[in-house]
């Protein structure tokens, strides 16, 4: 990055070595991160992994014990929330119940002492953007959950903050509405060209919405990258396990050169890639996504075989359950179109195979 770029290259948010403890409990151990302009970055992780605490520190609602938080290049650790000029959407909306929709959205503009006529125009604009132009006079309690969330969104970006924080904003909505709101949030983000820091524990939401995802585990960022990088090339077993579904098959390393490894599974040799160098003879697990697993009727001896125990109907896909000789179950996923091609019936023995690039090796420690 060159310094001559000015605002275009100036990161919106920089976190370095941020740490937060509560008594003896380490909520955030050490987080480093840079958020670019107009970027949609998601904090994904199980509950208690530190993602919400990190968001609260960016908002100024929690103070870090150590490390630095910079917004637009300026350190803000000592700045109270009302002087940080960021927007935030809460899980339960946090709309002011005694104010109409219009006055809720006008609130941040009034705080910025914007002339009344200008406020009216910008509020109307924001309500138009979230499709609630007709609802300005209603009270929050007269709206549905999805509508309340749109009001919260309008209120959080009406003053064009450089950064918008969203803390599990769709957690309280049902599946259909959630998907609709996901598209809506992305559209608003693109139209208003804002940077978004989004917190969720829903990996599907993270995959569909984000430019980049930071996977949190035990107060640290386990891996950060594009959804595709994280899904196809997880750096750790935790990421492979948390993001999507994965089969873990125990194996032993035969040879390893750079990323390319030769592993032994139940007496047969397979190719796989390893994000980190592993020692020859080490006990490892090989991770393969269900949709990358191929089944074929057992023909020749050797290879990895198992007994097809079940084919589960999923509507648009079929899920096959294969019991390996060591008693462990493997799952494979087949699109409806190719599912008819599964030649085997439950009870028969099948061969399992995959392409080398779709198998990843991790050390055998969870």
């Amino acid at each position, binding site marked *: 990055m060159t310094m001559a770029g000015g605002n275009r290259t100036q990161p919106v948010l920089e976190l370095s070595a941020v740490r937060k403890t509560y008594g003896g409990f380490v909520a955030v151990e050490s987080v480093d991160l840079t958020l670019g302009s107009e970027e949609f970055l998601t904090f994904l992780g199980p509950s208690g992994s530190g993602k919400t605490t990190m968001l609260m520190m960016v*908002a*100024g*609602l929690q103070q870090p014990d150590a490390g630095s938080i910079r917004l637009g290049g300026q350190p803000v650790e000592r700045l*109270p*929330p*009302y*002087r*940080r*000029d*960021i*927007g*935030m959407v*809460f899980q*339960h909306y*946090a709309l*002011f*119940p*005694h104010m109409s929709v219009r006055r809720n959205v006008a*609130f*941040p503009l009034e*705080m*910025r002492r914007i002339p009344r006529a200008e406020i009216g125009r910008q509020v109307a604009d924001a309500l138009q953007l979230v499709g609630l132009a007709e609802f300005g006079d209603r009270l*929050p*309690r007269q709206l549905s959950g999805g509508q309340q969330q749109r009001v919260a969104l309008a*209120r*959080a970006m009406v*003053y064009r903050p450089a950064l918008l924080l969203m803390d599990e904003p769709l957690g309280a909505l049902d599946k259909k509405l959630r998907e609709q709101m996901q598209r809506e949030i992305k559209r608003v983000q693109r139209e208003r060209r804002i940077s978004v820091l989004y917190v969720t524990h829903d990996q599907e939401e993270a995959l569909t919405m984000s430019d980049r995802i930071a996977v949190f585990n035990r107060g640290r960022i386990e891996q950060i990258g594009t959804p595709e990088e994280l899904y196809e090339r997880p750096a750790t077993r935790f990421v492979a396990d948390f993001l999507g579904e994965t089969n873990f098959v125990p194996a032993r390393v035969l040879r390893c050169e750079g990323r390319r490894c030769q592993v032994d599974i139940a007496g047969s040799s397979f190719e796989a890639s390893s994000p980190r160098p592993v020692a020859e003879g080490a006990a490892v697990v090989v991770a393969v996504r269900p949709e990358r697993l191929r089944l074929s009727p057992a023909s020749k001896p050797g290879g990895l075989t198992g007994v097809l125990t079940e084919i589960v109907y999923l509507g648009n896909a079929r899920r096959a359950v294969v019991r390996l000789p060591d008693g462990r179950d493997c799952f494979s996923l087949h699109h409806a179109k190719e599912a008819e091609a599964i030649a085997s019936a439950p009870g028969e023995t099948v061969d399992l195979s995959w392409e080398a690039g779709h198998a990843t090796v991790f050390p055998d420690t969870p």
Partner: protein
Amino acid sequence: MRGDGLGGWRALRGTVCGLVTIYLLAPLIIVVIISFSAASFLQFPPPGLSLRWYTNLFNDPAWTDAIKVSIEILIPSAALATVLGTAAAHALVRGRIPGASIIGAALMLPIVVPAIITAAALFGIYRGLGLNGTLTGLIIGHVVLTTPYVVATVSSALRTLDPRLEAAAAILGAPPLTAFRRITAPLLMPAILSGLLFAAVASFDELIVSLFVSSARVRPVAVQMWSNVRGDVDPTIAAIASLCFAFALAALILESLLRRRTGAGPT
């Protein structure tokens, strides 16, 4: 069989409730009826009805002065108690104050400790300050006694108020005082007003501190009633008692209306 058993219990419950109601209300009703008596002494049932004791009440300077003094104490002390109590409740519930629970308990002491102890303590302190027998002294005493009511009602309302509303206000650009004025205070208003009403009623009814601290010239209604019943009693005392009762009843009704209005609100 089963229906009979339940019916029996219902009848018993009805009887008990009825008796308790009579036990609680009968003295009040008798006092109110006597206040309209035509007789010159306390007598029940009254031989006839009249408004002479109310007329007497409002023509006797001893009583009108007492009512005036009571109001002069009630308004500033209830207002002060409301402001101080609300501020204390906010600090105790929202602030990160070490020992907040101990401070909270200390604030509630004046309604836990026997009033006579507070009264004696105030009397002792006032002697040095020359506040005995002054309106200021009475007001301060009543603020001490009525602030706990405000602290209790406002802090319980504040505990049910979502702290994320204040967090949202802060992020949207509201400094703490603005956030309190625009968001927290309006949402707490029913609780604040009901604390104010409790404080006003408690101040109007207060006898013991007033007895210690008042003088012949600055004498609130409760003290005037006390000295009146110890001398020659006529139904004027019933008339002022009925007015006290009406004042408390009005406050209670107003309070329950306020409560209903918040009850309808969302969370």
